[in-house]
């Protein structure tokens, strides 16, 4: 996306080659909206929802009213189910994302060491990236069964690729003067790595992490639907199976709020503090 004139070809290249979680390096103005006029449609929506339930006499097993959803949520909070599910889901997400980031960074660094390696392995990596992480779930189920392991691996898989690709791209597009300057000053390979390559590719890494985190959250929910036996996704899925739609819809709302919170409170500020500030350095 063309954010400013000095973005240059590298960003365009990145963006036109890869798939992003949400495309924009910087959120559009409307995503930073405070809770001003924007709250009105939400309130209206809830109001319409309530009216629809009353007017259409929908059975609560199919289409619950907002009131019932709130009651159901209060109930799962009271029993301690919801807090533990939220904690588990977030925990799985964090562990998965962490594994994905670390392995992505390591692989990017390893691959960048050799032109031959990159040329050989990049098509393979692209192919595995094309295999949607969910497609592996049936095999993961056979290998690891149901539960956290499968979910975490799925999350890690979906984080790994964006991180690795962006990091690799960042390393490759780093000005050669960074590396050569350090070598001229007498740096050994490890020093070049730590003082040149890693800091130089950090902005790309941050972008990759943001994208990977987005993919990872969706993977989390999907994986929990299929392979979890606890957690937010599991709660939504199981409740729907037992026609406890109030719990199910409530769970969906919690999932939405959780993502919004994670995005606004952690991901966006981290990116604002790093990539945006460092953009001039590129």
């Amino acid at each position: 996306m063309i954010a400013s004139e000095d973005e240059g070809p590298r960003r365009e290249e990145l963006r036109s080659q890869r798939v992003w979680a949400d495309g924009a390096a910087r959120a559009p103005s409307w995503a930073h909206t405070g809770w001003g006029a924007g709250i009105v449609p939400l309130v209206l929506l809830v109001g319409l929802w309530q009216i629809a339930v009353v007017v259409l006499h929908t059975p609560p097993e199919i289409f619950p009213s907002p009131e019932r959803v709130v009651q159901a949520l209060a109930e799962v909070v009271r029993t301690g189910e919801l807090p533990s599910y939220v904690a588990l889901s977030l925990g799985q997400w964090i562990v998965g994302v962490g594994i994905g980031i670390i392995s992505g960074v390591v692989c990017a660094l390893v691959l960048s060491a050799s032109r031959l390696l990159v040329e050989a392995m990049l098509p393979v990596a692209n192919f595995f990236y094309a295999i949607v992480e969910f497609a592996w779930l049936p095999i993961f189920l056979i290998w690891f069964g149901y539960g956290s392991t499968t979910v975490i691996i799925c999350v890690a898989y979906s984080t790994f690729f964006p991180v690795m690709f962006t990091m690799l791209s960042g390393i490759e597009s780093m000005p050669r003067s960074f590396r050569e300057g350090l070598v001229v000053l007498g740096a050994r390979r490890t020093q070049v790595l730590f003082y040149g390559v890693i800091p130089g590719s950090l902005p790309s890494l941050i972008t990759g992490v943001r994208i990977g985190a987005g993919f990872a959250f969706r993977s989390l929910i999907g994986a929990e639907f299929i392979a979890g036996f606890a957690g937010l996704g599991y709660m939504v899925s199981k409740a729907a199976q037992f026609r406890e739609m109030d719990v199910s819809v409530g769970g969906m709302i919690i999932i939405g709020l959780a993502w919004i919170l994670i995005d606004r409170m952690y991901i966006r500020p981290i990116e604002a503090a790093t990539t945006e500030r460092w953009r001039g350095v590129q």
Partner: protein
Amino acid sequence: MRLIHVTSGAVAVIAVWWLVCGVFNIPEYKLPSPPVVATTAWTFLREQSFYGTIGVSLFRLMISSVLGLGGGFLLGLLIGLSGRVSRLLGPTLSFFQAIAGITWIPVAIVWFGVGTPTVVFIVTNAVFFIMLYNTAASVDRVPSAWRESVMVLGGSRWAVLRYVILPGALVGIFSGLRTGLAFGWRALVVAEFLAASNGIGYLTLEASRYYESATVLVGVLTVGVIWLVVDRLGLRLVEKATIVRWGLARQ
């Protein structure tokens, strides 16, 4: 030379796979060796119903894409163009984007049952919100100086739209298209796991229930190949014909 490098990577992976199967004596239901998978794949490729299965999945993807991309584009345009609409709808759309696609699956199954309508609903949902966000963001980012210069020269709002906004936002819109389809395809696979009785996702999950790992791997590979074809051949070509040709993106 390059081709050798490219294939050597694939060969290396397959070799490691084969070795692992042999050295660790892994039971076939856990990890079938490459020849077994290849034979299974060959069986599938000769069967006509396999192409029917793929066709069903692609058909669902196609319909959902048209609905989702079209709707997302139009609404995104509206939101990007109008500050008031964007401030008004912003939080609501952000919330629905947070739960876009996959999260709706259990509820959608209860409401719409199992089958193509449910899958289409889920995938359209996923594609729509991504496309919406990207279109709105890229329209929003078009420098107002461009807009104003056309208006100063006497251009109508329609002229502004056609000559400034759309070309200016085109790269971002394409980005939204690719991202939207990527998410849509992911949502399709999961939706077919849970909410369908045919399609490539259903085939893969069903096979795993019976521990037919070879079939599962064939399904996995098919998912990858389909996406590669859609992305590389389909989308890249469209991009080449448009934004690359018009100099808006480096390839």
